[in-house]
């Protein structure tokens, strides 16, 4: 199989990708999701490492971590940077590509940059 050489490509203007938003880019076999997390941009492949679901169509939000002193023993953290797979609810941190439960199960991440108010993805 011929490996495609990563290319820097135009995604959209930054105005079209506000914080909390995601743009799905038609690149490669599965597409890539570009996320704006509180003003910083990240990109992950639209392919869950579990069974291949379109990961970027899942809900974006936070996750829970243990907080023994809290009445419900948990608190919400990493707001806006966790995507939940639409099939089996696996959680990934879009800023690292790591699965929240088991960081060894990861999805591919890509370089994103902004130039003159325009978002570019290298994929």
């Amino acid at each position, binding site marked *: 199989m011929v490996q495609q050489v990563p290319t820097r490509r135009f995604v959209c203007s930054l105005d079209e990708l506000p914080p909390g938003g995601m743009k799905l880019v038609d690149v490669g076999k599965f597409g890539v999701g570009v996320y704006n997390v509180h003003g910083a941009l990240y990109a992950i492949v639209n392919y869950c490492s579990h069974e291949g679901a379109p990961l970027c169509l899942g809900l974006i939000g936070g*996750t*829970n971590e243990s907080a*023994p002193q809290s009445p419900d*023993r948990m608190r919400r953290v990493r707001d806006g940077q966790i995507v939940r797979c639409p099939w*089996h609810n696996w959680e990934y941190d879009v800023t690292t590509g790591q699965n*929240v*439960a*088991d960081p060894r199960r990861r999805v591919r991440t890509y370089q994103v940059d902004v130039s003159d108010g325009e978002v570019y993805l290298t994929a």
Partner: protein
Amino acid sequence: MTPIIDANVQPHFRYNAEIRRYLPDAHKLRSIPDVEQQWYQAPGGDYRQDLYGENYPGSDPETVSRHLFSQGVDYAILNPLTRGNIADYLLNSRICAAVNDWLLDRWLEPDSTNRFRGTMRVNPEDPKGAVAEIERLATHPKLVQVGVPMQSREPYGKPMFEPIWEAAAAHGLPVAVHINGGNGVDHPPTFAGHAHTYPGYAAFMPLNYFVHLATLIVEGVFGRHPRLKFVFADGGYDILTPLMWRLDTFWLSMRDQTPWVDRYPSEYLPGHVRFCSSAFDGPVDAGKMQRWMDFTGKSDLLMYGSSYPHWSTSTPGVMAEGLDGPQRDKVLWRNASELYGLAVRESAL
């Protein structure tokens, strides 16, 4: 000769009324259920038919010593039964204390062989009483674990039980769960209700351990008590692997509902869980044994338990059939030696 630790032996009263001698005066006239008083019974009685005599099977320490120790067993962990859960939980705590006093009086203190170790029974339906009983007896050098019934009206991961487990862990005492009951204050013995006959009961009742185990992991009890250990004494280790696969799979999907579970559920097993062997466990074809034992690291979890004098008593030879050398050592003595801090004879090694 390989050392052997028998991690599951049931000592019995000579006769049912013997327990009354150890009850406080306030309770001496109370009606309490007899042993072997439940619907599901093995044909001919629950115990080896050759052992019934004037007194109950397994009730004479010298006979039990002869049967076990002359056949190569170095230590036997005594797991006495109480009357299971009964509706009067305060009375039941006194029955547990009576069983403990009887075990010390008839078995552990007169034992000149120094090869018996005992289980102190506590009543989980009375958590305050159970903690008090642990505090009363925890420093006795021959009481090496705390015992509770498999039958329970809530799974053992629920918060009302946690003070009991905390007390056991604080004293370094494992908690042994053993089928003990049949007096009505129980759930049905299978997940789907009451088995028709004894084989259905005996085959599936031990599997209830998994509900306790799953809740101890998922509700965070093991995570909060790193020293806490549970021994499931009725076997069922052989179905542990597929059940843990299920728990691990669900954790990957819904970890955020129990974020204190900070590793795969199966990763709690080595530090917290042991099983006693049972005659019902394992593949019928011994050739599959080695491979199956290595799934989920079961070789490090299993301890030989004879269940003597139960009718299903199994010998060390039968239990070890099909195992490789290291597995055999772990199951017959090494795992129990580590758990209970029992040094085996040097000559045996």
